[in-house]
């Protein structure tokens, strides 16, 4: 019980912060003033307007697309990282995977701005300040984590199952599809959940690569709180977004766990 004390204290602090957020969300915003008025439901009503629901929808779509694309792009790298016979190759892949962690989100995003803009390459379609550009940045940002989670899952697969399938005449692609992939589902589920959750709260990537035109939930919360100084409105939007995050995570967890269970 004593060992749990630090964790309980941290949770208590977070609960107080959350309570303050909820309290602000029901206080009246007075334009041109830092003071708040009495109790009101107006902030929550405003958040449920089409404009703000659209920001939430855009965030859900971008997060889902980021998760799927990150998974597809990361799996082959993770597989190679876990299964390559060459130690040099494994080291090289590990270094390349870890390298982005040492550059920081802002530096990486600025680099993407140069790549996606017209500074060095003239793209046939506009990528910078478009959802496609934000998606590319989010996928790149999420890949190292997804690769590491998937590689850990793949390296824990007992290879005798794959050899048994092959000895019974299954071709390599069939072995992967029917044995390796299902057995790596715990990694797929955890990686997808992590990527979905943090993409849902992404701030610098959509802020910089979206050029103000692509806004996700965190950008709108920031806009309301720090640009319009509408703290009650910002708190209401954050509270609604938090509730939606929990709901979506519950749905995604259930769906992925079922898919994993069925596949296994």
């Amino acid at each position, binding site marked *: 019980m004593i060992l749990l004390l630090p964790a309980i204290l941290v949770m208590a602090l977070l609960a107080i912060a959350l309570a303050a957020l909820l309290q602000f969300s029901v206080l009246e915003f007075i334009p041109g003033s830092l003071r708040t008025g009495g109790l009101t439901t107006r902030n929550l009503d405003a958040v449920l307007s089409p404009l703000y629901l659209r920001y939430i929808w855009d965030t859900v779509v971008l997060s889902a697309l980021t998760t799927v694309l990150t998974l597809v792009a990361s799996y082959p790298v993770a597989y190679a990282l876990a299964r390559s016979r060459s130690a040099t190759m494994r080291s090289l892949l590990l270094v390349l995977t870890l390298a982005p962690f040492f550059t920081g989100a802002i530096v990486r995003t600025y680099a993407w701005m140069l790549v996606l803009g017209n500074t060095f390459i003239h793209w046939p379609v506009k990528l910078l300040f478009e959802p496609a550009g934000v998606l590319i940045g989010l996928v790149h940002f999420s890949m190292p984590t997804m690769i590491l989670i998937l590689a850990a899952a793949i390296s824990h697969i007992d290879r005798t199952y794959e050899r048994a399938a092959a000895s019974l005449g299954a071709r390599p692609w069939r072995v992967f599809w029917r044995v390796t992939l299902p057995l790596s589902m715990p990694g797929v589920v955890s990686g997808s959940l992590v990527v979905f959750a943090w993409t849902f709260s992404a701030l610098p990537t959509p802020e910089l690569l979206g050029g103000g035109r692509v806004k996700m939930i965190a950008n709108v919360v920031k806009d309301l709180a*720090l*640009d319009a100084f509408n703290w009650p409105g910002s708190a209401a939007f954050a509270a609604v977004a938090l509730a939606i995050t929990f709901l979506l995570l519950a749905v995604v967890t259930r769906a992925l766990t079922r898919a994993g269970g069925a596949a296994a």
Partner: protein
Amino acid sequence: MAHRPILAALVVVLLLAAGPAPAADPLVISMWGGNWKDTVEKVIAKPFTAKTGIPVEFEVGGTLDRLAKARVAKAAPLVDITFTTSHVGRLYMSDGLFQKLDMAKLPNARDLAPEARRSDAHLGVWAYVYTIAYRPDQVKMDITKWADLWDPQLKGKVGMPDFDPSHIITISALLEGGDERSWQKGQERLKRLKPNIAAFFSTDARSQDLMKTGEAPVQVMLSINAFHLIEQGLPVKVVNATDKPGIVGIDTMAIMAGTKKSDAAHQFIDLALSREIQEQLVLTFKAGPTNLKAEVPAKLRGQPGVFTTPAEWRERGYIMDDETRAKTLPAWKEWFNATIVAK
């Protein structure tokens, strides 16, 4: 006798442990970062310390980040002086974060342009305008007036701030015969600008990046930032618009309520408003002085945002009402995000 060396060593150790004599309690200034802080440190803080012996420290951050910080530290302010824009100063005042200035301690304030006296709690230290700045090497047409922003030749080339759209909203209203109070008059005009908008920016640094990379080679830009880019060698033209004036911005100084260094803070502000310091600020920032006695070099006279006489303050820039701006900004932002920013 044998104890002498030990005693001497002990004295030396104690002296070292005591460290140097403590410096005077520093005056803490809340300020924007980058060029803003560097200039204020060099032009105002150093002479202030030389004159008074009081060191100066800076807390840097964005306009509204610092406001948020000031609000949560209201009971015990973390800074003594705040530099902020004039309308955001109104927000500080709404929560009693500024103290009333003692004008008897600010003799240099007598020479201020009336427009720089924003309230009895905050005074203008320099002026600039939000105007059009563009890169002639990337834009084929000659831009001379605000209405040119709507020209189809500028399709996908214009950048503007989204953290505070009050400038372009007011300009649209002015072009349609309204002003910031009747801003709705410019709504339809502003909607027609959408095809020309390439990007929005939320910081001065992003604005300058967009200009450098050519992603948004035409911008509704802070004149000081445009002059800064020119100094860096970028081919940028700053427009003195012929149809409507630029929107004037006045950065102000105020003393935080509850500070224990009110006297030193008054001295700092008075020094910042002195003719000599104002002249240096003009040279460094290419901004307009608020002290009407400050000399402005010939090459800067008539430049956007540089006003040298009471008549120029009135005629060459449009000054929005601070209170209207502070109160209407949330509504402007919401409309702007929903109608102009949203695809």
